């Protein structure tokens, strides 16, 4: 399997993706932003289509769209009551835009499916490098912001009264999420991105109870899902995204079962 260049690339890129998604997912879950990552993945689809329409790489289009819109969504949804509706409106608009740009760029529907569902074969060495660099940036910013981000994510009220610059943290965090979405789309596709951004972290919180351990376990779940998914996809010639989704769901439901056995609730 590893004699094939594209499989080596897929494993390398997949590992980076699993690491940043596992890490950032812990904070996505703590901040109740699962729904937003779903929207960002749709926005990512529109961005990718736009990138292709402009003759750029899909990744550049995604980055531009997701980063800009995450900041806008963040500003719009400060009020909790308005959050869901405004996110729905934006996601509807962007799916429409994605379809528009795809049709304008005269690409076939196979292009659309590879954006939506990811494509392992499409990953070249240059893509791996881009994924690695972006992952590095995301991780470095996270490390630099670790304590304030942790405080704001796990105890927003405490962080605010202690005078932390919580608005700035939210905006930076949304940009990080947007970058992770764009990166992760390479493998699992924009439609299934939120799987890696939410499920490993959501499962991890039932097994361990400190932020650092949650990050560790969440990365582990993400990596196992990606590696095993790639392997099964290779062996069976079925879509990798399906396997990754199924594996992460197994982790999540196992975690729920474990919680039920453990505390009876």
């Amino acid at each position, binding site marked *: 399997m590893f004699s094939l260049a594209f499989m080596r690339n897929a494993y390398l890129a997949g590992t980076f993706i699993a690491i940043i998604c596992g890490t950032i997912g812990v904070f996505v879950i703590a901040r109740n932003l699962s729904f937003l990552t779903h929207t960002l993945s749709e926005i990512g689809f529109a961005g990718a289509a736009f990138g292709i329409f402009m003759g750029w790489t899909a990744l550049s289009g995604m980055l531009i769209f997701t980063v800009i819109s995450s900041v806008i969504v963040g500003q719009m949804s400060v009020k909790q009551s308005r959050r869901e509706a405004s996110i729905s409106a934006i996601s509807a608009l962007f799916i429409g835009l994605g379809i528009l740009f795809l049709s304008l760029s005269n690409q076939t529907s196979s292009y659309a499916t590879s954006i939506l569902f990811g494509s392992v074969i499409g990953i070249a060495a240059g893509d791996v490098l881009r994924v690695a660099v972006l992952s590095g940036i995301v991780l470095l910013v996270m490390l630099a912001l670790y*304590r304030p981000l942790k*405080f704001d994510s796990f105890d927003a009220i405490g962080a605010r*009264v202690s005078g932390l610059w919580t608005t700035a943290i939210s905006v930076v965090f949304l940009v990080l999420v947007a970058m992770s979405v764009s990166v992760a789309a390479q493998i699992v596709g924009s439609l299934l991105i939120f799987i890696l951004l939410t499920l490993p972290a959501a499962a991890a*919180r039932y097994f361990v*109870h400190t932020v650092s351990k949650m990050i560790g376990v969440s990365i582990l779940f993400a990596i196992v899902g990606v590696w095993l998914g790639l392997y099964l996809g290779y062996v069976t010639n079925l879509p990798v995204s399906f396997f990754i989704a199924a594996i992460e769901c197994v982790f999540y439901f196992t975690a729920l079962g474990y919680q039920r056995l453990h505390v009876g609730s």
Partner: protein
Amino acid sequence: MTAPLIAVQHLGIAFPNNQVFKDLNFEIQRGDFVTVIGENGVGKTTLIRALLGMLKPTSGQIKYFPSKKAIKVGYVPQFRNLDQEYPLTIEDFVSLNMRGWRPWLSKAEHRQVDTALRVTNVKKIKQRPLGMASGGEKQRAYLAQAIVQAPQLLILDESTASLDNEMKYELLDLVQNLNQTSHITVLFITHDLPLAKQYAKHYLALRPGQQEFGAMAGMSVEQLKEVSDV
């Protein structure tokens, strides 16, 4: 112990259509234990927000000694909706309030967290997820988080409201102990007049349009009731 920590002078705070305070005056001395009593909606939380600098006074001023920056404030908020699935252990929750840039805690910082856990009596259960802790344990964990940075001023915003009688006194005993041994100045907001009477040294009674600041000694619960309208 007569050095002032905070002086509120001619403070006025108004929202559109609502004048909350007009000419509010009082002084909090270092090491004092002040209770703020008054009906709901009279502006207790507004006052705290002004003291914390989250709200700009419309008139008058709040003076901090020696300076606002030099005073660290620990705050135990009234509401914190942490549900049963809240994942962090009590220890990790308390250490959220440790500042600094290093992702992990240094040895000295670990000791600081340990001290906060010990004096609030949650050291034994520090590995328990906070979501699984009882109401009283949660309040003690909040208290531990508020004092982990060794603040000069500790503000408790109706922290006993959700607790049963026994737990209330347990929590306030801890706070009193901190007040006496570490000389933390305490500002305790409550509805509970007997509790205020038992622990506070001074009271600030707020009523719409007027206020009264005075020593607790010699006040009966009935008299407190009269001045605060509670």
